């Protein structure tokens, strides 16, 4: 594919190219844009970085993610040249040891990697934050999210059944990228909460499951909505409940967020409420979890009581964002658990 990577010559037939790649495990199974020499060179030129620059290595294969390889996968995913700085930044963030990519790629857990975009670049590149933002129809979201996944497959070696040992997998592993709807959020945006300036553009990667819907059409006030959300968080079987750790994501729809905020809840108040009420009864856990008393000991250490288990150590661990359009729905994304942390990177060339 360059002076550094092997080039293959194929007939100018989309179907033949798709089949050639598919047989070799070089695609995610969906149609892709062939990463021709001309396209890759043109996109690398747009990015303005050396094709052979090694950005990072990607586990579990520890493949070198050069600019050229990242670009080739971004081309396949359907990215536009202007999407490339985000893709490169997301790949770099995914390789940060705090995300724990080796475990993320090779676990049996169905964790995907969500790319969260904050700041002016979201509008500039039409990255959806509103209606149906996790779903179909949003080219930038899908292409950017898919580009990271193809890099994880083709450079990192996270192929299903091989490098990727997921028991069942997850559709969010195809493409998972969203912008925060800062305009309709009553709270400070995620990136500002994490120390960036309002006009910074920031790329955050979070190793999490796909969205789990939380509907509440009946509650009128903020406490009611929060009670429903807390009830959804307190489910058996999430990685958070296993060791009461991690950084789960709650994505409020704008309507729920406003219901909560208008009743006086700051983002910190929301986290406190959800941490205190989003608990699972220890007595309803499997006996194998609780027989030796260690689980209840940890619950007592964290909360001062042994009855209800929190999903993480402290309220601040809960990651709160706002996205979507009006409607009585929010969602949450359990993460891989305590062995991964969100990683945010300033976008330097957006």
């Amino acid at each position, binding site marked *: 594919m360059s002076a550094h990577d092997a080039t293959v010559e194929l007939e100018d037939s989309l179907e033949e190219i798709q089949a050639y790649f598919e047989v070799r495990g070089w695609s995610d199974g969906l*149609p892709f844009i062939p990463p021709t020499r001309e396209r890759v060179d043109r996109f690398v030129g747009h990015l303005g970085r050396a094709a052979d620059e090694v950005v990072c290595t990607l586990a579990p294969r520890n493949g070198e993610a050069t600019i050229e390889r990242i670009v080739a996968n971004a081309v396949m995913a*359907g990215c536009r040249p202007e999407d490339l700085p985000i893709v490169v930044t997301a790949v770099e963030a995914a390789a940060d040891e705090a995300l724990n990519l080796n475990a993320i790629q090779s676990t049996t857990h169905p964790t995907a990697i969500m790319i969260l975009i904050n700041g002016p670049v979201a509008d500039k590149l039409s990255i959806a934050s509103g209606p149906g933002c996790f779903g179909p129809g949003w080219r930038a979201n899908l292409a950017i999210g898919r580009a990271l996944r193809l890099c994880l497959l083709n450079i990192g070696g996270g192929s299903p059944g091989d490098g990727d040992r997921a028991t069942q997998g997850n559709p969010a592993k195809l493409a998972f990228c969203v912008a925060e709807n800062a305009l309709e959020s009553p709270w400070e945006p995620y990136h500002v909460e994490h120390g960036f300036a309002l006009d910074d553009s920031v790329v955050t990667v979070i190793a999490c499951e796909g969205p789990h819907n939380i509907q509440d059409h009946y509650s009128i006030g903020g406490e009611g909505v929060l009670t429903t959300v807390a009830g959804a968080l307190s489910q058996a079987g999430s990685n958070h409940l296993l060791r009461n750790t991690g950084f789960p994501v709650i994505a409020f729809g704008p309507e729920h967020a406003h219901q909560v905020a208008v009743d006086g809840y700051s983002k910190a108040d929301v986290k406190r409420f959800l941490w205190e009420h989003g608990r699972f009864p220890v007595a309803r856990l499997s006996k194998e979890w609780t027989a030796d008393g260690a689980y209840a000991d940890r619950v007592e250490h964290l909360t001062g009581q042994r009855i209800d288990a929190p999903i993480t150590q402290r309220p601040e661990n809960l990651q709160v964002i706002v996205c979507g359009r009006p409607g009585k729905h929010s969602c949450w994304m359990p993460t891989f658990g305590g062995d991964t942390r969100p990683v945010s990177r300033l976008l330097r060339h957006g």
Partner: protein
Amino acid sequence: MAALHDAGLTDGLPVIPPSTEAVAALLGGRNPLAVAIGAPLPIAFAVPTWEDLATIAVLAAARASRRCST
């Protein structure tokens, strides 16, 4: 590809262009104008023909070996 995206005919991901040959291969001799599903599909309440279904299946990269049957 860009024209298909701009026309709102994709889900945002790359697609296989539905050429006449590709659609015909998926139809496998079926009457393209015959009604494929006897009920209108909300929310547009269109009644899809076999050609409609075959065209969409090509976009999604379905193979002729998995063509629709009655």
